[in-house]
Every structure is written in C-alpha cells, then in structure tokens.
C-alpha cells in the first residue's frame, strides 16, 4: 500500500527520479541567488529535506539486485544527448547518462544525509547568505551527479562541477588564510583530474566503438596494458580526493580553513568521491588492472594509515587533528579496495569471500566515516564558539563546563576510533578480516588502530577530563547547535547494531564485481 503511494509519487516527478534529484538543487541554486539572502536558508532547507526524502524513496523502490548492465535495470536510467562529435551514420556522441545500483544508492543517501546535516549546521553563516546557499545547492548537484553518472563524460562533468562551489565556500566563508587553502585544493584536485581525464580519452579511442559508457567499456574486456594505465590514472584522480599519502597535502589546509559546514561536506562526501571512483572506475570497470596493482596500493594504504595517525597525534588544533583522522580512515577504504582487487583476480573461493568482505567493508567504511567525521567536524567547529579557540592544549575541563556538548563529542570520538557498537567498528572489522586473509602483512594496519585509539583518548584526556581552567570561559553550545550532531549520531549508532541496512544494498554489487567482467 505504502509502496504504491511512493511509486505514484516517483512516477509523477518530471523527467524521472534521478534527473529530478540531480537538477532540483541546481535550479534551486539559481533561485536562491536571485531571491536574495532573506529566503536563502529556508529554501535551502526545504530542498535538502526533499532531496533526503527522495534518496530514501530511491533506496526503497530500487531493487539492489539489479545491476547497471541489466537490460531491465534501465527503468530508472536517463540519458540526454548533448551533441554528436562527427557527421555520418552513428557518430560518437557526448551524453549525460544516469543510472543507479546498490553502490550508488548508498552513496546518494550518504551525500544527501551529509548535505542535510551540513545545511542545518550552517546557522553560523551570516555573510552573503544567498551566494553561500547557492553554492551549497550547486555542490549537492555535483555530488549527486558523480554518484549517478554511468558514463565517463558526465562523471567528469560533475566531478569538475564540485570544485567550483567548494572553492568559493572554502575561500569566501573560511577563516584567515582560507583563500590560500582554496587555491591549493583546486590546484591539487585539478591536477589529478587532468591526468584522469586524459585516461578517459584513451579509453574512448581504444574501444572498438568509441564510447564513454562505463557499462559498455566494462563489457569490452580491455587489454591488460590499457587497464593498468587506466588504473594508474584513476589513482592520480581519485587518490587526490581520497587522499593517499603523497597526494594528501591539500586536505589539512582545506579542512582547517573551511567553515564548519564546508569541512563537513569535504570530509563527509568529497573524500568519498575518491573512494567511489576507486570502486566504480577501478574494481567495477577494470578489475584486472587494479588486481595487478593491489600490492603497492595496499602497502601505500597501510603506510598512509599509520603516517596519518602519527601526524594527527602531533596536531594541536582540534580541526586539523580531525582532518588527519579522515586521512587515516580513508586509507582503510583504499586497503579494502586493493585487497578486494587481489581477491577478485583469484579463483580461490576463500580469497573470493575475503575480497567480498573487504570491498563491502570499504563501502561501509565510506558511509560510516561520512557520518562520524561530520559529527567530529561540527563539534570541532563548536569548540571555537564555545571556548574561543580550538587549541587542544588550551582547552581544559570541557566536561565540567559544557556537559551536553561534551557528551556528544565523546560519543563521536569513541565512534571515530572504532569502538564496538558504533558503525566504525563494523567497517574496520570487515576490512581487516578480508585484508588479513588475502595479505597477512596487511594486519600491520592494526597498528594504525592502536595509534588512533591512543591519540583520541589522549586528546579526550587533555581536553575533556582535565581540571577546569578557571581563567578560561567556556560556554555550553546552544540547543540549535546540537541538533545536527545529535541527528547524525543516529545512523552512527544504528549502523553499529544493524549494518545490514547498508550491506543489503552493497552485497549484490560486490557479488557482481566478483563475477568478473564477461
């Protein structure tokens, strides 16, 4: 009965649910900019709530068992041909091609959730609101587009679209020195994209019939040399976003200087674009290429994890500590992807099931990290308002002075280092089980967990449980400031007990990847 109502809502949407979700924020962005600052926040809240509800509906109506290359799965698909590239019969065309499977649905729900939370926590933005919310909605369109695209052209279009609003949000509404951070962010990511897009072009031309369609490219069974080259290029593009060790330098800058909602979106979803690109363009499209690179990538992941943990330990700024925590956590995703690729290539059923675990863990890690780190960033942002500083060494006795805020913060911190009962634990456990079965030495990443627990507890010890400093004024955060983080803790705890909520979506996608390319 309810499903009928939902179905009729979906069928009433113009264009279809995917393009509707995709273009609604983009159109609303223009409306917000034109209508001015007074209505900006209200319109944005309405749009992000509609988007969130639509993404839940999307999760309900789509059968996760249907894969992108399934001919019957094209019901939700949508395509728009921009132009033909040559004259004559059947010329190659540039298209916007949309479609979803279990993996994309998880990412779409995550991005709409994080955007919703970030919109709620934007209440401290006072300056040029209409521009801010305009960029904010544009950003949402870009993110959704990346996760919905099933052809390389539209993937790249949306991948680039994300850059511009993010640049402005960091640069204009960030702290002192934010412009430098924004430029650094753009240069790093653009450099990665440049290499990635050249590899897209190569794929276009090596294909027997020139195409950007991911499904067709996957089914073509590209030659190993091409696959390895493409995998390296994807590593450059997605590795910057993820980020991986040598390409990570923009991240602490951008995260620290960005305004709180900006950091939330950066850490909550932008990094996931990297993880998603690794899985979609790597494991899903060219499993062979990634399988050959799996050992170096796994080593890099383990190294990044431990390196980021040590660096995080050395930070005195709360936000920058959280930023390094993200690098630390995202390296788990890379580990899951790389060992998963190794498992995909082998015919041993034990390794195959280990790969299944690791890839599911990687996807779960993206979801769980997206939720946890959002809370962490919001709390780090609150510290600035509550205590006037984010210096870990200067804040003392937080628990005594601001109990409500601190309890949320403690919960988030516990979730961040993967305490059982929170979603982070499930993710790390899944990846670790898979990884150790495939490469026994990958267990070294456990040292990363050890460090993470160490520095987070040490931070709590210094800030929260220490004796209050009588000279320091610390206010309790207001109720309205706590709405967003408390809402966001719900999925964190829920997924800790009921991981199947996410895993149900991803199971069949991962099984499909394990099936190998035809």
């Amino acid at each position, binding site marked *: 009965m309810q499903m009928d109502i939902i179905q009729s809502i979906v069928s009433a949407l113009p264009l279809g649910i995917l393009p509707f979700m995709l273009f609604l924020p*983009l159109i609303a962005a223009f409306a917000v*900019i034109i209508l001015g600052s007074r209505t900006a926040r209200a319109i944005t809240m309405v749009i992000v709530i509609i988007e969130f509800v639509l993404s839940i509906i999307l999760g309900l109506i789509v059968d996760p068992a249907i894969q992108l290359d399934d001919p019957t799965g094209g019901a939700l698909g949508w395509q*728009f041909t*921009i*132009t*033909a*590239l*040559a*004259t004559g019969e059947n*010329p190659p065309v*540039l298209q916007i091609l949309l479609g979803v499977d279990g993996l994309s649905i998880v990412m779409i729900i995550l991005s709409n959730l994080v955007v919703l939370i970030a919109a709620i926590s934007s209440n401290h933005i006072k300056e*040029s609101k209409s*521009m801010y919310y305009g960029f904010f909605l544009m950003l949402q369109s870009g993110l959704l587009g990346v996760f919905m695209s099933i052809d390389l*052209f539209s993937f*790249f*279009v*949306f991948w*680039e*679209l994300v*850059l*511009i609003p993010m*640049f*402005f949000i960091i*640069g*204009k509404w960030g702290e002192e020195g934010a412009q430098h951070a924004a430029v650094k962010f*753009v*240069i790093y990511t*653009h*450099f990665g994209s*440049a*290499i990635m*897009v*050249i590899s897209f*072009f*190569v794929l*276009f*031309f090596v294909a027997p019939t020139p195409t950007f369609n991911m499904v067709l490219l996957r089914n073509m069974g590209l030659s190993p040399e091409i696959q390895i080259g493409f995998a390296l290029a994807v590593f450059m593009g997605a590795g910057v976003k993820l980020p991986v060790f040598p390409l990570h330098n923009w991240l602490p800058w951008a995260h620290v200087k960005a305004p709180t909602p900006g950091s939330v979106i950066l850490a909550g979803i932008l990094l996931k674009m990297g993880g998603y690109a690794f899985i979609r363009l790597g494991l899903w499209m060219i499993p062979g290429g990634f399988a050959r690179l799996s050992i170096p990538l796994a080593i890099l992941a383990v190294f990044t994890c431990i390196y980021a943990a040590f660096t995080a330990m050395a930070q005195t700024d709360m936000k920058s500590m959280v930023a390094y925590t993200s690098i630390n956590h995202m390296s788990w995703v890379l580990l899951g992807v790389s060992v998963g690729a190794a498992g995909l290539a082998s015919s041993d059923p034990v390794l195959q099931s280990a790969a299944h675990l690791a890839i599911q863990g990687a996807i779960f890690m993206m979801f769980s990290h997206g939720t946890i780190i959002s809370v962490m960033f919001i709390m780090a942002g609150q510290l600035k308002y509550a205590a006037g500083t984010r210096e870990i060494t200067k804040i003392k006795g937080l628990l005594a002075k601001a109990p409500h805020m601190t309890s949320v913060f403690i919960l988030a911190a516990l979730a961040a280092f993967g305490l059982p009962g929170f979603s982070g634990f499930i993710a790390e456990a899944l990846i670790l089980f898979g990884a150790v079965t495939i490469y026994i030495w990958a267990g070294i990443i456990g040292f990363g967990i050890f460090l993470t627990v160490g520095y987070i507890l040490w931070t709590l010890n210094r800030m929260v449980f220490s004796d209050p400093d009588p000279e320091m004024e610390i206010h309790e955060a207001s109720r309205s400031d706590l709405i967003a983080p408390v809402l966001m803790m719900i999925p964190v705890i829920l997924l800790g007990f009921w991981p199947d909520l996410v895993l149900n979506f991803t199971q069949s996608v991962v099984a499909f990847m394990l099936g190998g390319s035809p």
Partner: protein
Amino acid sequence: MIQSNIFTDILAAMLVPLRDVLVQLPADWYGSIPVLTLILFSILSLIIGLRYNPLPVSIIGVILAILEVAALDSSTYGVSFGGLFVRDAFADFFIYLVLLVAILVMISATQYGGDKGPYNFLFLISFAGAIWVVMATDLVALFMAWELMSTPTYILVALSPDRLGLDGATKYFVMGLISTIFMLFGIALVFGALGTTVIAEVGVGVAAIWAAPASLESQAYTLLLAMALFVIAFGFKIGIFPGWMWVPDTYAAADGSVTAYLAGATKKTGISALARILLVGFIAARFEWYPLIVVIAILTMVIGNFLALAQKDILKMLAFSSIAMMGYVFVGFAVDTQFAISAAFFLAFIHAIMKTGAFVLVFAMSIKLQKRITYEQLNGLSVRHPLAAAFLAIIMISLMGIPFTAGFTPKFVLFMSTVEVGLWWLGLFAFLNVTFSLGYYFRVVRAMYFRTASEEGPLSLPRIPVSIVGICAILVLVLFWFPAPITNLANAAAALLIP
C-alpha cells in the same frame, strides 16, 4: 527533434520570398550577395551619417545580410564571381560567426562612435571583407579580401576615445603591414613553384611534388618556405606565437566594440584562411607543418597564460587570454583530424561569443568610470551592479572551461582529439594550461564577489551593453545543453576540409 525541424521549416518558409527576390540578381553574384549588401549599406550609412545617426541603417544592413545568408542555400547559390568566392559548409560556419559578432558589435556601437558616418562605414566594409576572406578560394582573392577587412580596422583602432588609441593603431598597422608583406611573398613563391594561385590547385600541385620529392626538391623547399610565411602572416592577425605582441596594446587601446570585433571576428577569419591554406593547399605536406604547429600551439598557450596572469588591466588580461585560447585552437590544427578541426572551430565560435560579451562590458565600464578598468575597479561589482556582475561571472566561468557552460565542451572534445593521434602529452599540457588560466579568471570573479568596493553606491551602466553581455551569457549557458546547431555546422565545415 521533430519540433526543431518544424521550427527550421517555418523559418525556411519565411525566407522563401526573400530568396525569390534575390535570385533576380545576376547569377554570378549569388554567393556574394550578403557581402554586396554590406558594401551597399556601408555607403548608405556614410551618406546618411552626414546629417543623421546612421547606426539603424547599418544594423538593418547586417540583419539583412544574415537573412540573405540563411535564405540562399550555400549548396545551390554558393558560387560567385566565377568561383573566386565560394560559400560552402566551411565558409558558412565562419560567415555566421562573423555576422553574429557583427550584429553584437553594431549594437554595442551605440555607446561610442555609432552616431558617426565614417565609423559605421568602416565597420561594414570590414565585415564585408571578413566574409570574403572566409569565402576566398584563390590566394590573390584572399589577399584582396584580407586587405579589405584589415585596412578599416587600423583606422577604427585609431578612432578610439583613448589617446593611447593612436599608439595601438600604429603598432597594429606596422604589424599588419609586415604580415601583408609575408603573405604576398608567400603567394609569389607559390605561384613561382606551381604556376597557380587557386588553393585547390595548389593542393594538387603540392601533392604531386610530395609524391616525387627527389626530383623536385627545390620546389618543395620553396613551397615549405611559402607555407611557413603563410603561418606567420596569418599568425599575426590571429595573435599566435611570433606575432602576438601587438594584441594586448591594441586591444587595450581601441574602443570596446572594435576590440570585440578584432577578438571575436577578424581573429577567426585568420583561422579560417589558415585552415583553408594548410588543410586544402598544403595537406600533402602535413607531416612537414604539423611539428611547426605543435610548437606554435605550445608557445602561444604558455605565453598567453603567463602574461595574462601578470596583467592588472582587465582588457589586457582578456587580450592575453585570447592569445592563449588561440593556442588551444592550434592544438586542433596540430592533431588535424576531422574530429579535432571540428572541435577547434567550435571553440573558436564559443570564444567569439564569450570574448565579445566580456570586451563590451568592460569597455562600457571604462567609459562610465572614465578610467582603465583594473581588478580594483571590479571590486564589489556584485553589490554595485548585480546583473552585470552575474553575467560577467558566467562568461568568466565559461572561459575557464567549467562544466555547464559552453566553454567546457569544445575544450573537452579538443583535448580528447589529441589522444586519438597519440599526442596525448599535448592534450595534458593544454589541460594543465587551462588549470593555470583559472588563476586570472578567478581573480575577476573574486574581485566582483569577494572584495568590497572602494566607492559606495550603485554603478549605473547603459542598458544596451549590459543586455549584449546578457545575451552572450545566456547563449553560453544554453549552448552547453544544446550545442547541436553549432556543432553540426562545425562538423560539416570540418568534414568538408578533411573528408
């Protein structure tokens, strides 16, 4: 798709009466009727300009020329003057480009100079020359048309409201003369080696010589020299590597309408002339000229981008950025497939729209404020004139090549084409150059939106230039989603050159 067909059918039906009138003219004129119309109206506006404001007459002339181009199908009515000037798919693409810029420029002339007879006369004569340049199939005819197009622009630059105009005009004139000399020398060498100046016959002759290089070595070297001279001669006008120095001075000194015309239209006719010479006349010598073009493309991109970053004056920045843009277009020539040429033409078209809008708006501001426009003058424009700021921002974003603006697609396709022939490093290099160019385009946006103005209060700009920029900005947004009218023309033009 069906609807658009109906739409074009109705348009075509409306133009039938016009065609019926026009075919009464001598058959030898058919292809050149729009040009002859422009010449007629130029004289008319000169005469009317003695007493009245001639601008409406010239605008009517340009609109009439556009209608005539649309009414006379180039496949039936394309030939004129015994095949000296021919309208084909390739020429049509550039004719539409020139006329689109022409109409925008003439509307923009209401700000400055449009009320004077000579100003209108010079513009219309130059439009006529520009159309003949793209139609010319003979080197001598090309030369004549080239001079017809260029000579009025030297004077137009000198007519600038700025005293620097004379300086810019002199520089432009000297450079133009040098390029003319090179061109003439090149034509003479070609005639000496092959005994013909018809471009298609040159193509046949070059192919014959390249097929038997050992015996005809001296002729081959003569032709190579001629080819290099052509590249340099037209390169002066286009503003590519060896001949780019006049561009910033002239663009910054001339009045905005003239600059828009120079950047939007005459540059593109240079590209079309070079395309005809290289791709029709010297296609057999492809492997000789393509390294030259690669080097020119790289140097042009780098020089344009680096110097654009160093500018404070917006007009100069835009001038250098169009030098860089020509570097991207030359990437298409270097790749030299149908795909790449089509993308290069597409980029040229979009570039014309973007640059016209930008120059017109910046010039309108500089007239209003009575000073040169630097980044500081743009500070806080989003508050002082929100509409103009929004339009300029859209154009800047399109110049950057960001998705959802028309500037993105041609660059994407152009860089894509480099991979097909194995020049992927050139594509990567061009892409990184685009990244580099974000630096100075962002500064414009940043000044308009993130800086506070030094002067308070709204800035009132005349409505006409703002609406021109508005048209350009809207075109830029729409052409991302529906570029088919232009890409179809560009594809047809490229298919004609490279079957």
